[in-house]
């Protein structure tokens, strides 16, 4: 126990400041201001791998490490889509995951948002569209924000998430 406490003391707090939102990541119309106001930054995310190579998952995991400290911003990953405000989707959508992805989206309460993460989620990536792959996430469910990258870095993912929830970045009304 003493060793554990000493280690915690030795390391201290390594968390870093979050990035600024970037309206350029938005897809389609801007968010309604009141939604952003109600949620503030208290956001529950359900992540779905719809067919990724698992590279994006590595960087999504990193959001929870002490440097990015996502939970410190009031944002957390939840186990059920019924508890989620935001669906974070990776991968080209494999045809075998198409129904599961749609059902997950439908199980979420309104209002709800979707981020497509990674080059594959944004445009199908190197896998494209085929007998086995539907390609980009937006072909299967509505997408609000796209975060490209192969894999996208944690800061890019964080920027995408904060872009969604930041009322300041909202240009609509």
């Amino acid at each position: 126990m003493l060793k554990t406490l000493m280690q915690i003391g030795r390391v201290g707090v390594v968390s870093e400041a979050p990035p600024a939102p970037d309206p350029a990541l938005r897809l389609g119309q801007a968010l309604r201001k009141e939604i952003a106001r109600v949620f503030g930054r208290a956001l529950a995310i359900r992540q779905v791998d719809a067919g990724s190579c698992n590279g994006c998952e590595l960087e999504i995991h990193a959001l929870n490490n002490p440097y990015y400290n996502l939970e410190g911003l009031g944002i957390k990953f939840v186990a059920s889509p019924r508890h989620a405000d935001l669906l974070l989707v990776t991968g080209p959508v494999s045809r075998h995951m198409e129904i599961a992805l749609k059902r997950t989206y439908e199980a979420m309460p309104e209002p709800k948002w979707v981020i497509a993460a990674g080059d594959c989620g944004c445009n199908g990536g190197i896998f494209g569209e085929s007998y086995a792959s539907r390609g980009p996430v937006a072909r299967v469910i509505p997408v609000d924000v796209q975060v490209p990258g192969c894999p996208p870095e944690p800061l890019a993912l964080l920027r995408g998430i904060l872009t969604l929830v930041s009322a300041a970045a909202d240009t609509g009304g």
Partner: protein
Amino acid sequence: MVSSAARFSPLPGAVPAGLTDLEAGELRAFCERWRAEGASLMALWASDERDRGGGFRLHLAFLDDRGLRVARVALAESAPEYPDLSDLFPAAARMQRAAFDLTGVRALGGDPRPWLRHAAWPADWFPLRRDAPAPAPREPQPEVYDFVAVAGDGVHEIPVGPVHAGIIEPGHFRFSVVGEKVLRLEERLGYTHKGIEKRFESLSLTEGARLAARVSGDSAAAYAWAYCMALESLCGVAPPPRALWLRALLVERERIANHLGDLGALGNDAGFAFGLAQFSRLKEQVLRDNQGAFGARYPFDYIVPGGVARDLDEAQWQTLWTQLLPLQDEARRLRAIYDDHGGLQDRFAGCGRISPELAVRLGLVGLAARASGQTRDLRCDFPCAPYDRLAVNRVTHPGGDVAARVAVRFDELFESLRLCRAILEHLPDGAVRAELPPAATDRPGCGAVEGWRGPVLVALEAGPDGRIRRCHPHDPSWQNWPALEYAVIGNIVPDFPLINKSFNLSYSGHDR
């Protein structure tokens, strides 16, 4: 034994490999002999050779004391069939089903259920047949799959997935339980199948390296190296020494990053969140140094045909060098904390055990096999450059439980840190990329690399004009997923996440 050895003709390349052609009628007799000699089945796949007047072909890759053994079996166009091999090599069962789903080549007497095919394409349409017409547009439909039912008083089923409760890849687990005790687990995988083998056939040999790196992102360096090794075998060229040392550096750093991540997650799954916070911090430092030295946290495209994409300059070398010893000190401190933590060791010890005998019987590979008393490690058994100069220390543990898989990760982590220091210290000078002559089209090329999870295999055939004719990437998860079904028997349901994480198998690498 001599007669079976004499039939193999050597294949050029970084790993010792031989090739033989068999008749379907003699396949089982040879497989029985190779099994008796201690060979394990590494991969099984099929190809359509009708455009070359050859019907179909079954390919099997074995690993034994002499290296990689590739056997090819010509199958008639009218009846592309061969005898079931799953009684000899249990790992063959799912590979045979997958080979049928993709090519229509059938194992007679094997499990007739589909494996990689769910409901996305019809049962009589085979994506890897060269004359397969474009598939008709198909509405997504749910799959009906014939799970094995367990009957008895008080038995009920728990279906889990494909969407899991965390940040995890998708797959389905069907538990049959009494109370909290698991009687049986049946896996249903294939959800992330994205047609990678078919996609390869639309790429040039050079472009293929990018796709190979994305078969399983957590093993990108191992896959990219295995692919390039296969291509360089076809081209009859070896990359410059410096490039090979840099490739090994990246593969060892990939092992370090994954082991750090798993060690943290295993602590977390046993209720010790401190472990996740600490190890994920160390992993983040490794990734940031990757960014500094290789230009990306996950440099998927650093390993390229002929060598590596960029050289390491003095400052980048320094970035990597200065990090290694502090990282080792930190990991040692954390290991002492893990070892002393009674609650943690209670959860790890005896949980999800695969005995050494079962590991042999199932053909377990890689990290999980070494945690069940097995010794195979390509870096030690068939050390290609630079491993031939590094004398990699083999890590093995007889326990077979979660605790053993944790111990092997710690030991391999420290060994990889040592290897990274040795690589940086003795990094040869010179070029980092060689020109590739045209690839041979009359033989396959093989690449095999000991990734962090186990041996990654890529078998490659070149077509005319520098295109890929056939590429089969094989993930060690194929062998180890069935073992997970055994490891959970008799354990309680709440221990499943911990047992599963202790194997940490790839869904994407398996589903392809």
